[in-house]
């Protein structure tokens, strides 16, 4: 027994020893050009054709490059793997010239066939790629993906020669080039894929360190589940002399508080988010460390229009108009978010919605409610507001609940749900009002507005308007940007007038970053091509 005690205390002192904290990641990283990034949750996989989320995007965009990449400031398409391209056949045919010096990280050249093969993979039904629709603008792509067409040669993509890729579209699609900057359209290295499985087999081992082959500025070094992912400079990348970072280390961090603490103690150069209550603190203490940028996303409430009395658009509008959005963003979300009265964020590639029928007007709201048969909220049934468990959502819900109580004298029951329960209830339309958010896939109103076409996969309000559907379809075929945007405006006007949704605010990207982090430009998609990023002590 006694020696047991001694043993214990010894081991204890042993592992208590050595409490000298060396240089922080930020210091050493800045010295060696190693970027340490907080990256939200653990990526599901690193296969561009099978993943969806933002964390995955952050890593994949370091490992691959598409035909097109984006300008870090303006997000305007720029040559990537493709050195140049031509557009003809009134915007329906794109021809890409792939760089001669574009190589895979194992030395193989990147060819046009690689892209054909990769798009085939991404579109093939068995692959069950969630982002397949990103290529549905390509001729016959949808049919192939749905299995109506078996022969891929009928799909509008072919390699004219090793370095020339030709793509035919269903309609002229102004934002097509932006789509090509999205990882779902990236090429993967066929031999590597085939080494670990069939062309349309997902979840094989090819994305593991050692097996991995990519064509981006970095290659996969180390991947430890729920801990870190490290990528290091790829010397074979065509533009590698312009890549200044030697390594990037991604940390999957579930808890925002933890991430903020890590940032504060210099373990991270930048975080993926920040605890709401810390925003004010940083803005006062060290404003240079917090960055708040507009972001292509909208926070809104869905309304299940099959639920009485919410089937009455006036009531929906009344609810929407009773919310003091400015107060909400200023004292609850605090992240410089913009009060939203339309669904599409302002200045989405130059698009602005027409002035919305929705305003903050308690009197009007009361009037509408009375009109609908509930003067001063009397007899209004208690309806439930569903949100998935999260401090942020809770705070907003609590505030809005009270606003409705004060303005309209109606009672709302809050109900937070575990994420999956929440999702299943939304999908089965088993809700009255539910919190929701939408982040645009590409900078164009379409990514927002085509949601609410009849039976749209993400509509989930039960709302449907033939006129709206017609306008969205029309817009898809219009080439003139002005006309197109006007069509969208008409559509959005209908949407807001019917109010199956209550837009609340336009997202901003709020995150912490150390001043050493340079070449990291704010943009509405929060995309930061790493080859432009470098680390340097601020002057």
């Amino acid at each position, binding site marked *: 027994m006694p020696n047991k005690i001694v043993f214990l205390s010894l081991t204890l002192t042993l592992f208590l020893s050595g409490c000298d904290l060396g240089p922080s990641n930020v210091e050493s990283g800045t010295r060696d050009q190693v970027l340490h990034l907080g990256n939200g949750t653990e990526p599901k996989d690193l296969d561009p054709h099978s993943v969806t989320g933002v964390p995955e995007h952050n890593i994949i965009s370091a490992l691959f490059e598409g035909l097109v990449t984006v300008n870090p400031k303006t997000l305007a398409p720029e040559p990537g793997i493709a050195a140049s391209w031509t557009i003809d056949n009134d915007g329906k045919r794109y021809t890409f010239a792939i760089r001669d010096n574009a190589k895979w990280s194992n030395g193989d050249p990147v060819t046009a066939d690689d892209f054909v093969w990769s798009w085939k993979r991404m579109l093939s039904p068995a692959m069950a790629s969630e982002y397949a629709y990103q290529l549905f603008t390509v001729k016959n792509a949808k049919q192939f993906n749905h299995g109506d067409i078996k022969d891929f040669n009928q799909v509008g993509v072919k390699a004219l020669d090793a370095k020339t890729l030709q793509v035919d579209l269903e309609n002229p699609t102004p934002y097509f080039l932006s789509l090509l900057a999205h990882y779902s359209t990236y090429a993967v290295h066929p031999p590597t894929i085939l080494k670990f499985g069939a062309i349309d087999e997902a979840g094989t081992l090819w994305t593991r360190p050692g097996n991995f082959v990519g064509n981006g500025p970095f290659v996969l070094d180390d991947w430890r589940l729920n801990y870190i992912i490290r990528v290091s400079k790829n010397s074979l990348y065509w533009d590698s002399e312009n890549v200044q970072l030697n390594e990037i280390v991604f940390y999957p961090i579930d808890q925002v508080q933890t991430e903020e603490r890590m940032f504060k103690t210099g373990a991270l150069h930048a975080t993926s988010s920040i605890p709401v*209550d*810390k925003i004010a603190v940083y803005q006062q203490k060290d404003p240079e460390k917090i960055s708040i940028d507009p972001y292509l996303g909208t926070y809104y409430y869905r309304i299940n229009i099959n639920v009485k009395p919410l089937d009455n658009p006036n009531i929906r509008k009344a609810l929407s108009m009773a919310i003091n959005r400015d107060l909400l963003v200023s*004292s609850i979300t605090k992240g410089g978010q913009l009060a939203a009265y339309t669904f599409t964020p302002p200045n989405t590639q130059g698009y602005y919605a027409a002035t919305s029928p929705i305003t903050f007007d308690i009197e009007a709201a009361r009037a509408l409610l009375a009109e609908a048969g509930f003067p001063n909220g009397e007899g209004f049934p208690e309806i439930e507001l569903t949100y998935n468990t999260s401090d942020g959502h809770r*705070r907003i819900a609590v*505030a809005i*609940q*009270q606003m409705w109580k004060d303005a309209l004298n109606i009672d709302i029951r809050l109900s*937070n749900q575990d994420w999956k329960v929440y999702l299943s209830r939304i999908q089965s339309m088993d809700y009255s009002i539910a919190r929701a958010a939408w982040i645009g896939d590409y900078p164009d109103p379409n990514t927002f507005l085509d949601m609410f076409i009849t039976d749209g996969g993400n509509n989930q309000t039960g709302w449907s308007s033939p006129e709206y559907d017609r306008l969205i379809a029309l817009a898809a075929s219009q080439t003139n940007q002005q006309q197109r945007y006007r069509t969208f405006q008409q559509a959005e006007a209908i949407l807001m007038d019917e109010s199956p949704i209550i837009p609340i605010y336009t997202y901003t990207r709020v995150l912490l970053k150390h001043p050493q982090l340079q070449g990291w430009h704010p943009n509405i998609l929060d995309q930061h091509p790493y080859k432009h990023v470098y680390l340097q002590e601020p002057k």
Partner: protein
Amino acid sequence: MIDSLKEYQNLNFEQGRSLWQDAWYRLNKNKLAMLGLYVIIFFVVVSILTPWLAPYGYETQNLALGASAPSAQHWLGTDIHGRDLMTRLMYGGRISLMVGFAATAVSLVIGILWGTIAGYIGGLTDTIMMRIVDILYALPFMIFIILLMVVFGRSLLLLFLAIGLIEWLTMARIVRTQVLTLRKQEFVSAAVVTGLSHWQIIRRHIIPNVLGPVIVYITLTIPSVMLLEAFLSFLGLGIQPPQSSWGVLISGGVETMEEYPWLLVFPGLALSLTLFALNFLGDGLRDALDPRATRD
């Protein structure tokens, strides 16, 4: 002797002093325990009277004000929504105390019965009952709760049940080990010889003798139950905003402890106060229920 008998019969007593009357008498002499008792009573009274005492409505917001430090208007400060913390603490106390006691009561009943029966009967019955406990220990508790909620919907009653269902396991184990030693005691054999049924023996001779350790365990359970409630609320089973509970307030306070320390400190204080009060009371009760205990 006869005289003493007469004089005795004049003394008014019915079935004789019960263990409880007696415990109460002894408890009264234990200052610390009584202090604890008073604190608990105080909390209970306050939570009952809250609707009349509370300076503000628990849901009345002042978003413009937001979180503000303790002041003349708001003695304990306000939370993010500008709601008066003291008020919310009082209302939260109602929930927490209710959950704490009710849920513990559930676990107590199940735990004692289960443990006693297993320990008293022993043999195969014991083995099976204890293995069942093992199984319940091993099941993924979160999924379990979520299911409960989906099947039965959300209600305080369910909350009590859910927590009780988790807490009784340990209770049962503690009781069982106690009973195992007790049933070998001679006074149990004596009871058998007197002709008491097993149930009577369990009720009159076994259970009173396991109360001691059980009470101590309870005093530890109640506070942890209050915190568990916070986690269940997180899963959506617990109470819903704008209602609140100490557990919820604390877990919320943790996240903002640097910016708005008072949001953590005061709920924390409330809980620890209850905790210590309960602990003293518990130790006191344990001694009070043991006639042999020399009270020091």
